């Protein structure tokens, strides 16, 4: 029986490891989730490690989470067991876990790696743990973390496809080097840490488990065994691995491995030092290795663009008929900014001369607005700024939530489902091929840094197009149709004039032949002559494809040029509707008469 506190304290050692048990459990839970949802980045409470974030803190946590004293650990950096980072991590892992260190992949059960998949073909005994500096494959095309998360959730990968398209257009080949974006299990796009493209095919239907740990960014993800892994590439432009013609390892003579520069004299050596040594020591299964080497993916400049000539023009599928008479039906749309909702409406509108609720001070931007549009018909929505017309349009589009009302599309459930009640994701998808929008400001509908063709490619890839040449052909057709010279197809839209940008925006909106087109002040901000040309173009396009169009404008000339019927709005309400020429020649409501008088002046 101890009788001294000090003796007792000396007896009761406190456990010290790099990671407390609670953290390990958390990491294992994250790994399990990652294995269940291949390619999905699972957030985890990344702990600070005794290595800098970026020096493998994520990989280290994953390794510590899965390893036990009976495991054998191999650590490589750039393929090299003797790299400084590898050495540092190996001694730390071995010291704190009791696992046996090794440099032989065949003995290892856990291999922590930076930037390489070992040349040795791994099997089900292996867990390959990657150190990941940047886990987000979309970072290059989307800086907002929240937006990138939404894109993953909705499998909305058009932007990254556009970046590939732009790369091909600008450079004639895909220039993306290490860390090539992969589609995992047909669902999530994933960054495979910056491994070379050479290693990518070795993740597809692999026997081993791949775990990816990003400590700084606090993400864990996985490619489980027997999972489909496909590099993002257009169907008709082959994915290429690294290759230097005639290159062989100076040490072992291999030509079916990933080679790095041997020195400053132009030679090459194996990046995987273990493999290189074993080849020299005749301790390697060369034929199995060669079978798994991606020799079929060596660059072939002739094959890159070979399939362009055979592309047939796209014929839009025939419009479904037999549903309701209208293509778009809007009923009772209302939008109240501020408190009170529907209760704020009383006391507002044209008869009270205000849109501000006397009860709640809320702004009643629109209330009880209804209309429908049939295929081949264009409906105008006219009113001064502040009349609520753009609010109504943005509620219909879904850019802002409506306080009241419903929106139906003939193409969605035969017009029986209120599309405002659809989940956000489904509503956003509608914008691709159900209900396209042309904004007043082309910058809203276009990515100005992307080429004219690339902007159209965004719409087409979002709709599932994966043929580079088919996309180019369709883009060229559309640009031709909107009278943008084809010589400008591969110029960034930023270099275009306002009228030309608007034409590109229209071409993009029409890319997938949507049955409904919403136009918000499509020519406002353009010079009169340019505006006339755009109007003319629009009228032709609407007639050609039997589009149901809604045109919002403050300008009677625009409405007259494009529409058959018109709804007049004032202070958030519909005050009059009729045939467009009738409203212009025989306006009844005092407000419409003022508008017409102003237009005639």
């Amino acid at each position, binding site marked *: 029986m101890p009788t001294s506190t000090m003796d007792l304290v000396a007896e009761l050692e406190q456990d010290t490891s790099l990671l407390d048990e609670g953290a390990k459990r958390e990491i294992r839970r994250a790994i399990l989730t990652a294995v269940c949802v291949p390619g999905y980045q699972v957030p985890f409470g990344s702990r600070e490690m005794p290595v800098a974030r970026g020096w493998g803190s994520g990989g280290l946590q994953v390794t510590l989470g899965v390893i036990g004293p009976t495991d054998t650990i191999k650590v490589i950096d750039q393929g090299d067991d003797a790299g400084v980072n590898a050495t540092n991590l190996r001694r730390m892992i071995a010291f704190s876990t009791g696992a046996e260190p090794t440099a032989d992949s065949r003995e290892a059960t856990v291999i922590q790696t930076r930037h390489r998949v070992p040349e040795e073909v791994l099997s089900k005994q292996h867990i390959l743990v990657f150190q990941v500096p940047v886990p987000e494959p979309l970072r290059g095309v989307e800086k907002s973390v929240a937006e990138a998360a939404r894109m993953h959730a909705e499998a909305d990968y058009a932007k990254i496809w556009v970046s590939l398209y732009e790369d091909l257009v600008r450079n004639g080949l895909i220039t993306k080097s290490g860390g090539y974006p992969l589609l995992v299990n047909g669902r999530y796009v994933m960054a495979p840490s910056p491994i070379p493209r050479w290693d990518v095919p070795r993740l597809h239907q692999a026997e081993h488990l791949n775990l990816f740990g990003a400590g700084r960014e606090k993400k864990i993800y996985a490619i489980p065994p027997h999972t489909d892994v496909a590099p993002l590439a257009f169907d008709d432009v082959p994915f290429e691995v690294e290759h230097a013609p005639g290159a062989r390892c100076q040490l072992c003579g291999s030509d079916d491995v990933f080679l790095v520069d041997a020195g400053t004299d132009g030679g090459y050596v194996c990046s995987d030092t273990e493999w290189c040594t074993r080849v020299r020591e005749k301790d390697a299964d060369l034929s199995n290795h060669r079978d798994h080497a991606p020799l079929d993916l060596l660059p072939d400049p002739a094959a890159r663009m070979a399939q362009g000539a055979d592309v047939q023009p796209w014929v839009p599928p025939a419009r479904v008929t037999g549903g309701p008479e209208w293509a778009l039906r809007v009923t009772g749309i209302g939008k109240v900014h501020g408190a009170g909702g529907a209760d704020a409406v009383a006391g507002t509108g044209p008869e009270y001369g205000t849109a501000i609720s006397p009860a709640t001070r809320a702004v009643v931007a629109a209330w009880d607005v209804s209309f429908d549009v049939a295929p081949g018909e264009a409906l105008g929505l006219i009113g001064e700024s502040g009349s609520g017309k753009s609010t109504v349009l943005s509620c219909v589009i879904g850019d802002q939530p409506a306080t009241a009302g419903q929106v139906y599309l003939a193409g969605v459930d035969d017009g029986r489902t209120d599309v405002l009640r659809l989940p956000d994701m489904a509503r956003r998808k509608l914008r691709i091929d159900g209900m396209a929008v042309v904004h007043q400001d082309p910058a809203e509908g276009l990515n100005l840094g992307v080429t004219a063709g690339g902007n159209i490619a965004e719409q087409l890839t979002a709709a599932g197009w994966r043929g580079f040449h088919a996309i180019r052909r369709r883009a060229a057709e559309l640009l031709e149709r909107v009278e943008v010279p084809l010589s400008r197809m591969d110029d960034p839209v930023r270099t275009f004039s306002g009228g030309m940008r608007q034409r590109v925006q229209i071409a993009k909106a029409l890319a997938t032949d949507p049955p409904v087109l919403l136009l918000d002040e499509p020519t406002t901000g353009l010079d009169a002559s340019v505006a006339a040309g755009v109007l003319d173009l629009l*009228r032709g396009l609407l007639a050609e494809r039997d589009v149901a169009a809604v045109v919002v404008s403050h300008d009677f000339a625009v409405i007259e040029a494009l529409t058959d019927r018109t709804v007049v709005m004032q202070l958030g309400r519909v005050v009059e509707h009729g045939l467009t020429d009738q409203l212009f020649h025989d306006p009844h409501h005092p407000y419409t008469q003022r508008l017409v*008088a102003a237009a005639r002046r």
Partner: protein
Amino acid sequence: MASVLSVRELRKSFVLHTIDGRTVSSLHGVDLEVSAGEHVALAGPSGAGKSSLLRCVYRTYLPDSGQVWLHTAAGEVELTGLPDRAMARLRGREIGYVSQFLSAPPRTGPLEVVAAAARRRGLDRPEAREAAATALRRLNLDETLWDVDCGVLSGGERQRVNLAAGTVRPPRLLLLDEPVSALDPANREAALDLIGSLTAQGVAVLAVFHDMDAMRRLASRVVLMSGGLAERSGTPDDVLAGVA
């Protein structure tokens, strides 16, 4: 002959909210009948309501009361109460309206304008272009002008384009408002010939002409309007004798 257009007790006035709410009356209860193959000309002083009546039939003006019946193959349709969309469709297919002025959109060529009208009346694209070419040729519009912007045409050329658009694949009812006012004598002849041939094809024509000769030559019947009412109806000679 079968009636195509029946106008009953048609009244129209305008409330001018922008000018202290004044009311201006235009039609005071017009009754009118036009049959298939009949050419009815409206005569009377300016301000008598001739153009207003045409516009009320076409719904460019919305009548205050009364009815406008159009007798179509599918049955009778009352136009003043027809929903906007149905009216817009009916206009393209069944009713042509040729005004004094061409309201062609900018940067559109004559052939395109006329072909578009033909398409609205049910022709497919190649047929419509064919019909448009025939119509323009018949009105002697120089072929070199067919693809130029209508905005650069002379008044007479525009009027011919307008007339071609109104008469190509002729509709059941054609409303003409001073359709030849800007034409030189030679082209005027061709235009009047064309209009005259419509009645033979069974089109019902309701027209306003500035000049008596045209009226005498084309009209099966003249309706004299005065003060917003159809005062008298009869043969051109009967009615016009009193006027001129």
